[in-house]
């Protein structure tokens, strides 16, 4: 399938970046990358959301169970840039409901994170209702070690902390910006599309996006 069904989709994509939550100034240079929250912290906004499916599934490294991903949401999250500074010690685990968000970029300076929210294959590929569960930064951890039990515990922590799901209006606006559902051949085709989202929403991570868009060997 074509990556873009129409030029309008691309325009909508770029427009979504401009119409979303007010951009933050890049955070001041830190002596150390900021530490993750000790408990949970809400993200700021949902910029866009778009359904996707894959003809060829991939194994996700973002869950300890290594599930196969066949479908999900491709989302752009707005977070505090201070929470988006990559670190090599433990980072916050970004989570939506009881599912890890597979971050494709860090959101450095922009606070805009492009991520895959996979349908939960372990729960019969249940499609997450974006308005039903909070999206949040969880405590420090390694996503590759997150299993269902640990994620459930973290979700409970988020609820204790009073974190709420996005409002219906926010979700609706994000869906409108995201556009129609996408059908990708495989994870690589999704990655190429995500690279364009990074260029649009987090341009300071241009090296990352351009590195992803390098021509494929035939």
């Amino acid at each position, binding site marked *: 399938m074509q990556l873009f069904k129409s030029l309008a989709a691309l325009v909508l994509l770029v427009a979504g970046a401009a119409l979303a939550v007010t951009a933050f100034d890049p955070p001041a240079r830190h002596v150390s*990358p900021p530490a993750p929250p000790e408990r949970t912290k809400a993200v700021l906004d949902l910029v866009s959301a778009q359904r996707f499916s894959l003809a060829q599934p991939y194994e996700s490294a973002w869950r300890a169970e290594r599930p196969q991903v066949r479908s999900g949401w491709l989302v752009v999250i707005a977070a505090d840039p201070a929470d988006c500074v990559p670190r*090599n010690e433990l*980072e916050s685990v970004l989570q939506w409901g009881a599912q890890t968000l597979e971050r494709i970029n860090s959101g*450095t300076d922009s606070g805009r994170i492009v991520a895959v929210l996979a349908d939960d294959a372990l729960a019969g590929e249940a499609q997450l209702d974006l308005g039903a569960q909070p999206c949040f930064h969880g405590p420090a951890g*390694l996503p590759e070690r997150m299993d269902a039990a640990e994620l459930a515990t973290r979700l409970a922590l988020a609820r204790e902390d009073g974190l709420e799901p996005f409002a219906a209006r926010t979700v609706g606006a994000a869906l409108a910006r995201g556009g129609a559902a996408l059908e990708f051949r495989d994870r690589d085709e999704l990655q190429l599309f995500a690279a364009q989202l990074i260029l649009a929403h987090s341009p300071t991570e241009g090296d990352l996006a351009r590195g992803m868009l390098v021509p494929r060997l035939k």
Partner: protein
Amino acid sequence: MGTLERSTLFLLLSIQPALALQVGTPHPSAIVNEHDLAGRALAGFPHFEFTLALQQSELLFAAIDPTLYTDVAGAQARIWVVADRSLAQWQLNPLLIDARGSPQPVNFSALDIQHNTFVLDFGTLSGDGGLAYGLGYDIVIDLDQDGTLSPGDHIDGLNDTGIWVVPDPTTAGPLAVTEVIYSGGTWFGQDLYYPTNIAGMGQLPIVIVSHGNGHNYTWYDHIGFHLASWGYIVMSHTNDTMPGPETASTTTLTNTDYLLANQATIAGGAINGHLDSHKISFVGHSRGGEGVVRAYNRVKTGHFVPTQYNVADIKFVSSIAPISFLTSTAATPTGVNFQLIYGASDSDVTGSPGSNDSKPFCFYERSTGNKQVIYIQGAGHANFHNNGGNCWCTGPNLIPAVEQRKVLLGYLLPLVKHHIQGHVAARDFLTRSYESFRPLSVASNVIVAKEWRNSDSLPAFVLDDYQTQTALNLASSGGAVTTNVANLVEGRMEDRDGSFDFNSSVPHNGMTNASDTGDQPRCAVFDWSGVDAFYELAVVSGQEDFRDDVWLSFRAAQGTRHVETNTLNAPLTFSVTLRDRNGVSSTIPLSSFGRVTRTYPRTGSGVGAGWANEWCSFRLRLSDFRRNGFFPDLSQIVAVRFEFGPSFGSTRGRIGIDDIEIVKQ
């Protein structure tokens, strides 16, 4: 030269039939003396360090001890610097041809080695051996001044090379480099560097570079261009670090497979057939730094089976500022050659004792292969790549990124040269103390604490590694320990209170060498304050003969934020004595070769200044103890004694000491 002193039967053939000998019927006078001659002068005893390598533009010295080689005492001779020849070549052609143009007449003194130390070259000798990395020379003392290598002469380099003159290892190599960036799909983005004229070069070793979290695979041009200019193929790949180091290790392994499997297509086929799949090395940064250790371990244990290579093909693993999330079982270098490069100013992988996952030194401790640490004061986390931006560095005296990367390249090249191609001279960069021998282009104010230890598989007599025999008066070798140092404790190298503050209940303060319970490195710590003190290890029966050995090796570190360390506030020195059965002893001051660095005065993690303990390795040549009339009998050494205090070095100090051993290479 690196070999033991010996007199070598030298069979002359061909051009001087008067001296020609029949094989198997040596004439007693047909002896040349083969031993070390080349090196550098020292300010203190033993007054000369015989070395294997020097860098272009460094002075070349030669020296001979007249109290040991009495035949030179009072003699006149000529010293020749000859392009290196093999034994067979010397046998065919003993004519001396000086690489400097003419030999150097000298008059030998009978007094001591200092009076018999001569500058042979003021830095003009060429080290341009192209890809061979340096040029070798042999040094000949032509005693009979007949212009040939003849009986009675002395030579450094009869059976091997006397001295190597090598380029500064930060110098770019002679080859033009081509860079190609391509992708085999998600997580198979690769940035490839190879010699432009690879078509005529045969198979080349491969270096794989795995970046860290928040980094990018295109940020390692400095490594790629540098190593490729010296004849290697470098591939930096997209590394899946965000999920964690296990996932990162997978991308190291799969990208290596991909490169080898697709060489017919990559770069239009330019590298096809030129990848030496039996000479692969992994270099990882940060999460990639742990990832490459894990990658090696997965191949070794069979948890990952590559399609294009196997564990024996992986020649070394270099971890740059690695994180330490994984267990000591999952992430251990085991017996592969291993290098750790790390900055004391790192504010990402901080090395704080309060962080369980920030224990880079644990990988060195776990390694049982040839292993090395390069720990750079003032170096941050991010400046090991070349993207600029936030250095993730904190502390005083931060060094410029360009200097930090010089240190990185200056030790990566010798690492590759030695472990991949067996380059003998490159080993000098790895084993000698930093103050004794460092890349010349690195600014002189850059402070590096450097460790080296031979592989466990190499022969050694370990006097004490503190892993067994926990009684303070007994070494792990079983020999008695006698001492009058203060506050002696043996224990695990762990600062277990999460702070760099010193208190007596945590004697191994500042040691961050253990990451999980499977890490059990141990050492001794003690101090002295204003008076002389000693720490002596007896050599057990059956081990006293050191004649076949070459080095006394050990490591030492100053104790973080201890009152003695704070009061000294300087690099630390002490002396080492060997004593034979007859009571004859000889003492070498460590200061002749280097000093134990002062802990980097970084604040945080408690009160005061001083970051992690900085272990420094020292290798003292056993023959150096026999100098200027001091002649302990190396066939019956009964004690190795470390001596501290105003008579022997620093007036006061607090140190850890470990891995005291006698080695052959």
